[in-house]
C-alpha cells in the first residue's frame, strides 16, 4: 500500500501535467493551423481532408501582401501610434495612479470614482463623439488623431494604484529622510520599484492599441496613414477563394505583437508574480 500510494500520487501528477500540455497544444492549434494554411496554395487549402503540413509550401501570399500593398508604411504607422498610445497612456496613468495612491489633494476620491465608472462605459459608444472631436481639432489623418481617443484605459490606473498602495511606506519615509523631493521620490523610488508592472501594462496597452480597428479606420482616410489592422483589409478580397490570403493578412497583422510578447514574456510573468501585491 505504501509505495503504491506514493506512486499513485506521482501518476496523478504526471497525468495532470500531460493533460495540461495536451490542452495547451489544442489551445494553440488554431494559431498553428492559420500559419500552416497561409503557407498553402489556395487550392490546397480547400482540400477535403486534414493536411497538417503543406504539400507544396509557398510564400506567395506573403509575397503578395508584402509587395502589393504599403504594408511597410502601415507597420510604421501602427508602431508609432501604438507606441505613442502606450507611452502617453502608461505615463499619464502612472502619474495619476501615483497621485491617487500616495498624495492628498482635493477631489481625490471623486476622481477615483470617476475612473472606476469609466471602466464600465463601453468606449465604442463614444466613437462618433470622438470623431467629431478629432475632426474639430483638425487631426483627421494624423498620428495624433489616431492616438488621442485611445489614451483612456482606466484599468491601467486601477492596477497602478493597487501596486503603489502595496509599496511599504518605509521607502517613502526613507526617501523623505534622504531629502528627496516629491518628484525624485516618484522617479527614483516608486517608478524603478515598479518596473515589472510597468512592463506588463505597457505590453498589454500596446496590444490593445495595435489591435484597435474601428477608431483608426474612422480617423484615417489616406492609405499611407493607415495602421496595419486597417490597411491589411485591402489584402482581403470580397470575392473568390482567398482563405490563405486572408489568413496571411491575419498572420502579418498579429506577428509583430506575438514576437514582442515572446521577447518580453519573462518580464511580464515576473511582473505578474511580483504583483502578489494584488490583495482582495
Amino acid at each position: 500500500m505504501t509505495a503504491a500510494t506514493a506512486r499513485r500520487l506521482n501518476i496523478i501528477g504526471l497525468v495532470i501535467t500531460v493533460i495540461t500540455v495536451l490542452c495547451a497544444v489544442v489551445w494553440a492549434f488554431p494559431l498553428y493551423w492559420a500559419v500552416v494554411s497561409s503557407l498553402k496554395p489556395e487550392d490546397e487549402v480547400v482540400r477535403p481532408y486534414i493536411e497538417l503540413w503543406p504539400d507544396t509550401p509557398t510564400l506567395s501570399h506573403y509575397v503578395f501582401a508584402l509587395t502589393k500593398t504599403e504594408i511597410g508604411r502601415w507597420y510604421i504607422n501602427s508602431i508609432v501610434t501604438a507606441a505613442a498610445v502606450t507611452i502617453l497612456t502608461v505615463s499619464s496613468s502612472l502619474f495619476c495612479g501615483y497621485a491617487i495612491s500616495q498624495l492628498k489633494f482635493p477631489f481625490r476620491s471623486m476622481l477615483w470614482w470617476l475612473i472606476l465608472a469609466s471602466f464600465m462605459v463601453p468606449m465604442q459608444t463614444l466613437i462618433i463623439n470622438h470623431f467629431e472631436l478629432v475632426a474639430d481639432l483638425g487631426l483627421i489623418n494624423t498620428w495624433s488623431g489616431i492616438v488621442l481617443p485611445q489614451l483612456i484605459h482606466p484599468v491601467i490606473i486601477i492596477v497602478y494604484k493597487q501596486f503603489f498602495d502595496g509599496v511599504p511606506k518605509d521607502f517613502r519615509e526613507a526617501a523623505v529622510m534622504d531629502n528627496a523631493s516629491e518628484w525624485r521620490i516618484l522617479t527614483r523610488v516608486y517608478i524603478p520599484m515598479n518596473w515589472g508592472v510597468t512592463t506588463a501594462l505597457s505590453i498589454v496597452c500596446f496590444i490593445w492599441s495595435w489591435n484597435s480597428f474601428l477608431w483608426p479606420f474612422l480617423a484615417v482616410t489616406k492609405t499611407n496613414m493607415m495602421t496595419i489592422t486597417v490597411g491589411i483589409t485591402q489584402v482581403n478580397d470580397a470575392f473568390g477563394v482567398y482563405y490563405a490570403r486572408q489568413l496571411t493578412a491575419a498572420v502579418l497583422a498579429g506577428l509583430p505583437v506575438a514576437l514582442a510578447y515572446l521577447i518580453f514574456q519573462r518580464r511580464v510573468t515576473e511582473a505578474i508574480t511580483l504583483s502578489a501585491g494584488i490583495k482582495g
Partner: protein
Amino acid sequence: MLRNRRRETLFALALVAPFVAIYGLVFVYPTIKLFMISFTDAPLIGEGNYVGFDNYTRLASDRRFNTAVWNTAYFVLITVVPGTLIAFAIALGVNRLIGRLQAAILALFFLPYILPVSVVYLLWDWTLNFQFGIAMHVFDLLGIQRIPVFKSTAWFMPAVGVITIWWTAGFSILLFLAGLRAIPAEIYEAAALDNAGIWSTFRRITWPLMWPITALVLTIQLISQLKIFDQVYLFSTGGRPNDNVVLVYYVFQRAFQSDQGGRAAAVAVVLFIIVIVVSVLNFQLTRLSGGRSR
C-alpha cells in the same frame, strides 16, 4: 508624516493634470454629449431635435432591444463563470510546471490574447468552416454531424462564448498565476501532513485562498463581457445578426446602419446603467460569499 500641504497639493495636481485633461476631453465630454444626444432624434452624426424620453420609452416595446438584453445576459452567463473557471484550471495546470516548459506552455495559452479580434474571427471562421474547417473534418472522423456553428442560433452564442474565453483567458491566467504563486508552499506542506488529498487540498485550501483573485477576475470578466461587441458583430454578419444581437451591437446597428444616433445613445446609456448596477451587485455578492468562505 510632516507634509507640506500646499506643495503636495500642487505636485499632485500637476501629476493628475495630463490625465485629467485627456480624460475630460475624450471621456467626460463625449459621455456627457452621449447623454444629451439620447434625448434627441439626432442621426449618426450631427444635430437633432429634442424628443424627451421617447428614445427610452420605446425601448420597452422594442423586440430587438429585448433580444439584445437577453442575448447579452446569456452571453455573460455562459462566459463569465466558465471563463474564470477555465482560466483558473489552466493556471493550476501551468503552475505545476517548471522552467522552460512552463514558459512555453504559458506562451501557448497566452498567445491568443495578443491577436486582434479580426484575426480571431478569421481563425475560427476558418477552423469551424462548414465545408473546409478542420473541426468539421474531425467531426467527420468522429462520426458527428457537422454543425453550422455560426449560422444556427442554438450554437452561435456558445461558440462565440468559447472563442471569447479562448481569446481572453490569457490575461486571467496571468492573474491567477500571480495569486497561486503568492500562496506559501508551507501551507500545502501542512495540508499534506494533515492528510489532505488532491481534492480537499484544492477545495479547502487553494480555492478559498484564491477567492480574492477569483473575485477580481470575475469582476473584470463581467464588465468586459457586458460590453461584448466585436466578436458577435463579426461572426454574425451574413448570418442571423438580428437573432444574435447584443447590446453594444444594437447600439452599433442603430447608429451605423439605421443612422439613428439618438436612439443609439439611449441604448448606450441604458447599457451603462446596467453595467454599473450589475457591477455593484457583483461586488456585494463576491464580498458576501468571500466573507462566508474565509
